């Protein structure tokens, strides 16, 4: 079966806007495929190239090189046909402030040629489903963040798109609204909706997506199911130590001999120990530290997670 999204060797370089500006390489040769019905997540820190990828796939950004197709249609060559297949929930609130919530939905469907009685019924249905009926006839200027987000999703669904794109859908939402958004998206996907989502929240990608692509500095670092990605971290567990004084170098070179340790990485005063089991390991590491007169000022044990994987792949934390 034809992939819903296919991306091949996609590159994007933004030309400088000002005369003395610099070129920005946003995407560097990324390739991936998303089958129909998939819940696909693009995970990476801010500035990794997530919004550029979604921009190219939704016809708003022109690729510098390589190509991308939606339902087999080239996004750069036939943008109008691609637009019929996609629903887009952008990161910022771009709801039409001159219209009421209901009008936003109805007009959106009208742009896509949905017949009048159908678009009115569909708007009513989505307003109810997303709990927006009470304030459906108001303009959206007074809407809360969660309501804006729900209305943006409802709008994107008005023309029954084959693929739903969401750019950081829960950024700026409170925990309760985020949880509600997760439920909503899972429910949509369970009904067969193909979803492509970008996020910089690991737990979001972990909870929702069946396939995750990890992206940083415009390159694809890993692509797999959340479980497989977590398994790919050496050992799975991570012990992070903040060290001072003493002979740190000989301490870190002695660490790999401890039982359970798979890999040790150190960076100034921070030592990361990847291990396949943690029982007794922290105590052993502490003892080893005191033998080398190294003072441990902070210690942290983490379960296998995407955060650990990202840290392992890039040496940086996704949170920073």
């Amino acid at each position: 079966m034809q992939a819903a999204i296919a991306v091949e060797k996609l590159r994007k370089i933004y030309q400088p806007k000002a005369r003395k500006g610099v070129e920005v390489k946003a995407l560097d040769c990324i390739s991936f495929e998303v089958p129909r019905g998939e819940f696909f997540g693009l995970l990476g820190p801010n500035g990794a190239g997530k919004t550029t990828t979604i921009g190219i796939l939704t016809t708003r950004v022109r690729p510098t090189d390589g190509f991308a197709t939606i339902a087999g249609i080239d996004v750069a060559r036939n943008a109008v046909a691609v637009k019929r297949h996609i629903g887009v929930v952008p990161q910022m609130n771009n709801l039409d402030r001159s219209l009421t919530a209901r009008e936003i939905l109805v007009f959106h469907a009208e742009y896509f040629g949905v017949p009048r009685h159908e678009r009115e019924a569909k708007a009513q249905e989505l307003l109810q489903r997303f709990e927006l009926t009470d304030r459906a006839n108001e303009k959206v200027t007074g809407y809360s963040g969660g309501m804006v987000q729900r209305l943006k999703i409802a709008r994107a669904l008005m023309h029954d798109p084959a693929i739903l794109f969401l750019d950081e859908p829960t950024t700026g939402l409170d925990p309760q609204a985020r949880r509600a958004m997760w439920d909503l998206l899972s429910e949509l996907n369970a009904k067969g909706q193909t979803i492509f989502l970008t996020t910089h929240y690991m737990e979001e990608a972990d909870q929702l997506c069946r396939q995750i692509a990890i992206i940083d500095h415009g390159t694809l670092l890993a692509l797999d199911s959340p479980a497989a990605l977590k398994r790919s971290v050496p050992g799975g567990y991570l012990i992070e130590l903040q060290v001072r004084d003493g002979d740190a170098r000989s301490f870190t070179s002695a660490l790999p001999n401890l039982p359970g340790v798979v890999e040790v990485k150190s960076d100034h005063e921070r030592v990361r120990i990847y291990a396949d089991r943690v029982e007794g390991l922290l105590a052993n590491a502490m003892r080893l530290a005191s033998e080398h007169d190294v003072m441990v000022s902070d210690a942290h044990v983490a379960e296998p997670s995407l955060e650990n994987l990202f840290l392992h792949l890039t040496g940086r934390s996704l949170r920073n």
Partner: protein
Amino acid sequence: MTTTFLALLHRDLRVARRELPFFLLRVGLQPLLFTFIFGFVMPRLGIIPRGYTNMFLPGILGLSMTLSSMQAVALPLVIDLGWTKEIEDRLLAPITISGVAIEKMVVGILQAIVAGIVVLPLAWLLMRVHLSLRIDDVIQLLLVAFLSSWLFAAFGLVLGTIVETQQIGLVFNILLAPMIFFGCAYYPWATLHAIRWFQIAVLINPLVYASEGFRLSLTPQMPHMPPWSVYGGLSGFSLLFSWIGLRNFERRALD
């Protein structure tokens, strides 16, 4: 494609209809005050001769239509492109990027026509006593009205795509005042031969062709620019601004 175009138009007209009272106030106020002072008060005081209002009517009509057209396109675009990004919704509709821009120009032209329909009878009612209008050629009037509205809708598209949100007030003030004063709205271009360099310099002002076009079709007995230069100027500037505006719009809409 046509369905989407009509839907976009439907959206803009719905919003415009909602703002109709403000729109009427905006287009109606200036000609109302102008005709009152120049068409009624000053002739009564004997400061200007009665027939003088003939000279004003075409200019006032032209100004109302062109400014309406320009504002209808430029103002929402500057805000949409630079700040709220609301237009993204329409850029994702199944229509080409230039289709969205052309729709904006059509809205500008329609608003200008509504402004003309309001201003012409209003001005005429107020100045009726002194006017000796000969509308010889209604087709000529419609043609001039259409071309002038299109020209300024396209000019609005150019402004809307190059001006930053923070500068909009400044640009409008700096641009509009000289354009209006040097636009032959209040004096016929033909009479400027007394100041030859000025007569030639104002030709770069697109408003001159609109004012002269309305003068040509509403008060042909008054001195006016030859028809070929009126139509040449109007269509030349319309095409030029449409081309620049569409190109800029595409550049702003896509990264």
